């Protein structure tokens, strides 16, 4: 089964997104910030990562930059899932190594569509 790491400091978002991603056939792992996510990626790389931008300790942007510099860090498909809607920030996220980008609020159709565009389902 494919694995998806859900990185968000909001427990509610992790729970809602986790349910949707499970329905798409993924096993989910959770992380509460970028550093926590990086630690989990060092143990085992997931197939997909759904990551928020603004988080304490390490934000999503720094996490993706660090992830892409790790050995085999280019392998997971990274989808940002954030309230940030500014075009220039989206461009920054793509340049840092994100594959797709979801703007909150989201629903199951959006996650499914973005996962399909990223070749995950």
């Amino acid at each position, binding site marked *: 089964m494919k694995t998806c790491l859900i990185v968000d400091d909001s427990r509610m978002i992790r729970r809602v997104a986790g349910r949707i991603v499970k329905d798409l056939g993924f096993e989910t792992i959770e992380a509460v910030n970028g550093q926590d996510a990086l630690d989990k990626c060092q143990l085992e790389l997931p197939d997909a990562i759904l990551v928020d931008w603004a988080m304490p300790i390490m934000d999503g942007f720094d996490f993706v930059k660090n992830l892409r510099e790790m050995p085999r860090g280019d392998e997971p498909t990274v989808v940002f899932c954030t309230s940030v809607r500014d075009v220039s920030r*989206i*461009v920054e996220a793509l340049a840092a190594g994100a594959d797709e980008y979801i703007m909150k609020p989201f629903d199951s159709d959006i996650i499914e*569509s973005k996962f399909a565009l990223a070749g995950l389902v």
Partner: protein
Amino acid sequence: MSSMPRQGALSLAPSYYDALRRLTLELAGINLGANHAFLVETRLARLAREEGYDSLDAMVDELFQTGGSRLAVQVVSALTERNTHFFKDQTAFKRLRDVVLPDLHHKRGGGRIRLLSFGCSSGQEPYGMAMLLHQMREELEGLKVDIVGVDYPSQALERAREGRYTHFEVQRGLPIRDLVEYFETDNADWVVKDHIKDQVEFRDIHLLSKLDTLDDFHAVMFCGSLPHYSAPARVRVLRGLSGLVKENGYLILGEGESLSQMNFGFDRVTKNSGLYKKREVIIEPEIDPTLKIPNGRTTFEKDRKKPQKLKTSKS
């Protein structure tokens, strides 16, 4: 408010629901189906609110009591509006990208071609075509393309003309890189950039009409609607479309859709695909039966000489 009996959580009387189904079949040739009561109510309640009626019942009462044609078209448009999103039929877009556009470019080189999105709803399909053309601009160098989107007059078509979409709409089917490249933000909405918008013209038209107000097209995309039409309406709409496609032009149907037994002047491009090519019409000269043929000849071809046997000389 009407004192009609209630049906579960739905407010519309069953007799009205049946009348709406008949109206949609007559005007648009589309079978709503028996299990779409919730969809009917949701869409009509929104229309009733937008048109300033006190309730859904008040709007439907007026529709059937006064029989206003404008309201009838609005109601049918709301009921038949396709729930679409960007690049919804990926197979159809793949056919456009891999077969249709390269072939039209190869045959015509430069020049101008016309593409039609038939039943374009809120405009995602024709705008998707324009984005695809922009991405293929080097491959299709010299080819100028006009895109027309047609559908019944509706609020969806008005939104298409504006090119304005919610953040939910732009996140269905549209890759993030396309969103960044072809849209700009306007408050909470995303608006199609002018260079894409300028390539697309929207026209409201009755899809079952003669369609003679439209010019010919080199390719027509008609995806997702065909299965919803009644059998007579399907024949009518396909006959109309057949007249719109130029010779050697293309008809692109949706995933799993086909012309069935009838061909309407089209040949299937590859087996089991919804891609069709319009036949070239060979004009046979009419023969005047009163015309006398000299010497009983039926052809101007000279009598062929019989092959002569080679004489072999005895040595």
